């Protein structure tokens, strides 16, 4: 249990670092470390498939995409953020943490334990038999993403 709490605290810490770092490259790498910690938490929850997905796709692929974008927009990267943004954050963050803690402690014991019957079978069976149409949706979303990127980077016609 302590290991989970340490990992969750690390996840929040690296996410906050990703938001507050002025250097975009450092922010992207902090985000990758946060994804890595989230993947380890998923492994501890006995969800190895989603843990592997999180580490390979979110920590790997999305970080690469971010770094490519940062490299392509290098000269415009120094946007001046509002000065208030960095010093108001700790205030709001502490208030929210206290609020979150008290709400969760107040709910403790009031929400009945979630009832559920243990599942049978393997992940692949559940994905193929119970959530078949999710896969159709996933393929549609991937095609939509590819077409959107192609549309955004298409070359101008000669007569334009």
């Amino acid at each position, binding site marked *: 249990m302590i290991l989970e709490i340490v990992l969750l605290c690390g996840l929040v810490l690296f*996410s906050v670092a990703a938001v507050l770092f002025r250097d975009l490259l450092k922010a992207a790498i902090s985000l990758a470390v946060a994804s890595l910690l989230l993947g380890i938490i998923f492994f501890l929850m006995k969800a190895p498939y*989603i843990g592997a997905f999180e580490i390979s796709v979110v920590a790997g692929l999305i970080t690469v995409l*971010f770094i490519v974008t940062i490299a392509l927009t290098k000269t415009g990267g120094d946007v001046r*953020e509002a000065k208030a943004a960095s010093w108001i954050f700790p205030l709001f963050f502490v208030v929210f943490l206290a609020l979150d803690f008290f709400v969760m402690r107040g709910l403790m014991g009031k929400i009945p*334990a979630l009832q559920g019957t243990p599942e049978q079978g393997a992940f692949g069976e559940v994905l193929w038999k119970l959530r078949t149409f999710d896969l159709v949706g*996933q393929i549609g979303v991937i095609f939509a993403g590819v077409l959107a990127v192609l549309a955004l980077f298409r070359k101008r016609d000669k007569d334009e």
Partner: protein
Amino acid sequence: MSNIWLLYSGFAAVLVFVGLYCLLSMRNLIKLFIGIEVISKGISLALVATGFAKDHILIAQALAVTFIVIEVSVVATALAIIINTYRHTGSLDVRRLTKLKG
């Protein structure tokens, strides 16, 4: 079991708060997108934690896989839009985009 679920939901709520704060206060387009990523981490944590607490980890994993696929498509499209915006305005400042207003 519900206490573990409350612990994970509490941390998921903190992540969503951090992302929302980033979206509300930052001006750099890439920073705004990092905020969206942080929110999506909170959501996937909440999804898998609920499945874990309810002994339905397999179906939660199936849903989270769908969520990650959607996340990747959104990231690819949004980063392409950010690069095009940069080429168009020469800056990553979100306030420059108000030029088309009115």
